[in-house]
């Protein structure tokens, strides 16, 4: 978009928001439609495709044998990686992960890790030597705004869909046995992202709102309504009051989404 058009759009979006309205008809704290489809990649241990409006994210999990971190020798490892696939936007360049895809992966990672969704102790094979590594690969297929919430949903849905091969330990080697056991998750952390536009907060910004927003705040909330991760992004600021307001709304929105998805 040319900068003139962006300027006009920004004005239009801001004026609407001042009246409590949005360009696509939503209320300020309404999410776009959420669709979750699980198990669509049979080769993966778990997978899910999430549509958040037109934003589309595919996540797949793989479980491999690896080494624990030196400071947590009795725990399995979680590795979240995000790819901003060039197909998803003309602005996504091919190449190694940049600061945007790294931030996306790390925010999704923290939501899962800090909420203690996965019992990492159960993923230990031989303390200090061998553990299971859970890879979650987030593939952004269409970018229409709010990649964090869509990616966090896709990652969680893929983990909920994950089945590990049964195994036994023989002479310190992992031998695969027939059958599968689902990965047990104890929590369902939901990321809720706010955009600040013209000093007002809106939930689940879509692409045109993101292009005009001042700044962004993501709050991840667990099943008990506790906050387990936050991330401010963008070059603007929030007042302390706005942060607390957002934290309260995030709890409500996370509950609604969890209920809607039966999680």
């Amino acid at each position, binding site marked *: 978009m040319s900068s003139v058009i962006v300027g006009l759009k920004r004005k239009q979006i801001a004026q609407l928001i001042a009246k409590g309205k949005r360009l696509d008809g939503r209320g300020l704290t309404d999410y776009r439609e959420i669709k979750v489809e699980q198990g*669509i*990649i*049979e*080769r*993966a241990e778990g*997978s899910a495709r999430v549509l958040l409006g*037109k934003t589309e994210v*595919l996540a*797949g*999990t*793989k479980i*491999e044998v690896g080494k624990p971190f030196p400071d947590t020798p009795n725990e399995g490892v979680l590795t979240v*990686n995000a*790819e901003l*696939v*060039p*197909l*998803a*936007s*003309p602005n996504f360049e*091919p190449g*190694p*992960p940049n600061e945007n895809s790294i931030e996306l992966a790390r925010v999704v990672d923290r939501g899962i890790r800090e909420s203690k969704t996965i019992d990492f102790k159960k993923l230990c094979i031989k303390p200090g030597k061998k553990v299971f590594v859970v*890879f979650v*690969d987030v*593939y952004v*297929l*269409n*970018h*229409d705004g709010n990649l964090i919430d869509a990616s966090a949903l896709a990652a969680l849905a893929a983990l909920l869909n994950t089945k590990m*091969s049964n195994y036994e330990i023989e002479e310190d080697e992992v031998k*695969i046995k027939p059958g599968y056991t689902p990965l047990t998750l104890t929590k369902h952390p939901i990321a809720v992202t706010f955009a600040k536009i013209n000093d007002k907060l809106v939930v689940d910004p879509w692409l045109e709102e993101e292009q005009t927003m001042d700044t962004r705040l993501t709050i991840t909330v667990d099943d008990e309504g506790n906050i387990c991760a936050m991330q401010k992004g963008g070059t603007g600021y929030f007042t302390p009051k706005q942060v607390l307001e957002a934290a309260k709304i995030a709890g409500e929105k996370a509950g609604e989404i969890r209920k809607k998805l039966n999680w």
Partner: protein
Amino acid sequence: MSRKPEKLIDKKGLRLDGRKPDELRPIKIEVGVLPNTDGSAYIQQGKNKILAGVYGPRELHPKHLALPDRTVLRCRYRMAPFSVQERKSPAPSRRDIELSKVIREALEPSVFLEYYPRTGIDIHIEVLQADGGTRCASITAASLALADAGIPMQDLVTACAAGKVDNTIVLDLMDTEDKEGGADVPVALMPNLNAITLLQMDGILSLEEFEKAANLALEGCRKIYPMQKEALKAKYVSVKEVEE
């Protein structure tokens, strides 16, 4: 961790998935699936699930790559980390780089490059799930993505492999047949021009077997070609319906 099957063709002459030797896997093609690209297509062929998208003709970056007399076609083939049995690192493998090259060279003869001097066309292919024959399915999809982007072409490019499995020449090998079988011959064709734009082979085939396999692969291309055209038509019909 999958065990190797003892036989790839059973007593009735049928393959592991019940197909006859000259039978294609089920194919589903959809055009115009990615709203942010200039053109796109999705293909399912067996368990292969592949997206192809096109940007361009557009300004080239970096600019010094631009050519005064034609557009520059670039192609990037990648596999999602979860698309295969052992997780694939997201960094491009040597195989990714070779396949990006041969796919580009399979598509390039179909495009009127000289229509858009000083520009670039980028083809991005993402293999979401791989099940043998991804390069062929990628070409079939990518050619449709080019068409969907309105790039002028002499013909669509259609691709299909044939090969040898338990001493039988078979069409459209799936993953296990590819890995355990005796040979694989991927071919891309511009059907109207009878022009082969991709040809590779690995395994061992006598001259006669090769001729049989190549002909079977070409036959496969000719079976897929109408499905490509159907998918293209479906998109424009549905667009028209929306417009009306």
